[in-house]
């Protein structure tokens, strides 16, 4: 009897899992003892980290997209038909088009979404770069900006935890390049009492901010934005004026997770090592969808996906378990428009970023293209 592996979500995590399994299950796919099905929400696959470069005109939009069917191994049964209800008791998923998919193993890779509407006034007054419409709008705003106060406002929870620092350094260099440094004041706000959740990154970035004249306000959790007065107020009672508000909006998981009663806020309770959904033996969670208290980032999704591929392949072919996820995360950190560094850590090893260099920035630019090899399960 054929075993069905059903993947809900066609972002990076789901795509790596699908392609990685195809590469290891050649004979099983050929003889029909395994089939792999993916339910996605769009025909296209987006390289999300590339959005950071859009506002600065440093990447062409066409570079961000590929046809998802071309990214996926052709042996994956891919449907653009979003999941509407996930029933982990009956081992089935129903879709918006009314189909029902049964599974033997389910992979939840539904990802996260930005929710600027969850903070009063933010959607009206804020700019962001976490989706293509926002990134385009921010690009126009930056090109038209004649000077004044810019706030880079970070909210919890959010994915890609170094992106707020990166955009701040890039903004500073962008305006310096335009000869507008004396007309622009950048203030960065962060929810906890330092500039970044990673303590070594916070320690590194503070003197950099001081050196570059970037202001900051820590312990700043946004309560509301006043679009008329152009002010932003924190729960801690601080109010700041702005001419341009760039926000990293709070995130939530997907609605289908909430509607299926699989996790508060759309985050699925997940075993930190096995990546099982808590309470299930045949449901796995990968990428932003988990509630694991580590960075929501593409690299997290990638390292989790690698573990999940090995375990699913091993379960399907040998009925045995392969290995556990060690919490590994790796992030490039752009420290301007021409330099970068990187940070990695796992459940046991604390992060320790090295000095920024041009070489690492170039490697990040190279990775902007190598990403498509990651998604295909080749890198």
């Amino acid at each position, binding site marked *: 009897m054929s075993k069905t592996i059903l993947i809900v979500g066609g972002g990076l995590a789901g795509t790596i899992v699908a392609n990685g399994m195809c590469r290891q299950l050649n004979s099983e796919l050929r003889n029909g003892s395994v089939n792999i099905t993916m339910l996605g929400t769009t025909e296209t696959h987006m390289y999300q980290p590339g959005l950071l470069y859009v506002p600065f005109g440093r990447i062409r939009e066409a570079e961000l997209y590929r046809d998802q069917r071309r990214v996926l191994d052709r042996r994956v049964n891919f449907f653009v038909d979003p999941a509407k209800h996930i029933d982990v008791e009956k081992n089935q998923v129903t879709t918006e088009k009314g189909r029902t998919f049964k599974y033997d193993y389910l992979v939840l890779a539904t990802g996260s979404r930005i929710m600027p509407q969850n903070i009063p006034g933010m959607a009206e007054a804020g700019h962001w770069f976490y989706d293509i419409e926002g990134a385009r709008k921010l690009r126009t705003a930056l090109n038209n900006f004649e000077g004044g106060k810019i706030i880079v406002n970070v909210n919890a929870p959010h994915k890609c935890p170094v992106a707020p620092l990166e955009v701040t350094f890039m903004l500073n260099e962008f305006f310096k390049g335009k000869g507008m440094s004396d007309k622009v004041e950048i203030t960065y706000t962060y929810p906890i009492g330092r500039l970044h*959740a990673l303590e070594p990154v916070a320690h590194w970035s503070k003197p950099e901010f001081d050196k570059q004249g970037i202001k900051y306000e820590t312990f700043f959790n946004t309560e509301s934005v006043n679009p008329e007065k152009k002010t932003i107020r924190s729960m801690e009672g601080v109010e700041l004026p702005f001419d341009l508000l760039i926000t990293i909006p709070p995130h939530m998981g997907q609605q289908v997770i909430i509607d299926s009663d699989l996790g508060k806020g759309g985050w699925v309770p997940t075993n930190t090592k096995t990546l099982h959904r808590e309470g299930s033996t045949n449901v796995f969670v990968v990428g932003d969808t988990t509630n694991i208290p580590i960075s929501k980032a593409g690299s997290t999704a990638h390292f989790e996906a690698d573990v999940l591929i090995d375990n699913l392949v091993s379960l399907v072919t040998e009925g045995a378990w392969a290995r556990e996820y060690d919490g590994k995360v790796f992030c490039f950190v752009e420290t301007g428009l021409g330099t970068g560094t990187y940070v990695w*850590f796992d459940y046991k090893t604390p992060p320790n970023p090295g000095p920024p260099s041009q070489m690492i920035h170039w490697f990040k630019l190279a990775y902007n293209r190598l990403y498509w090899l990651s998604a295909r399960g080749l890198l």
Partner: protein
Amino acid sequence: MATTTIDGRGSFCPGPLMELIAALKLAAVGDEIEVLSSDKGSANDIPAWINKVGHTHVGTTDKGGYWSILVKKAK
């Protein structure tokens, strides 16, 4: 009233306080959240922040090697 536990032990990023901030957004008034943290800084920062924004710090227990910080959403 519901109680949620955040096991932030060994979490370098986003860390216990960021996890707590996110969890409070999803909690109802009166819900309690227990944060487990192996980081002494968080054991000090969390009560300070909780008092600043008007929630309730129910208590902190030294569990030997880690701390349990209990918080109640007050508004």
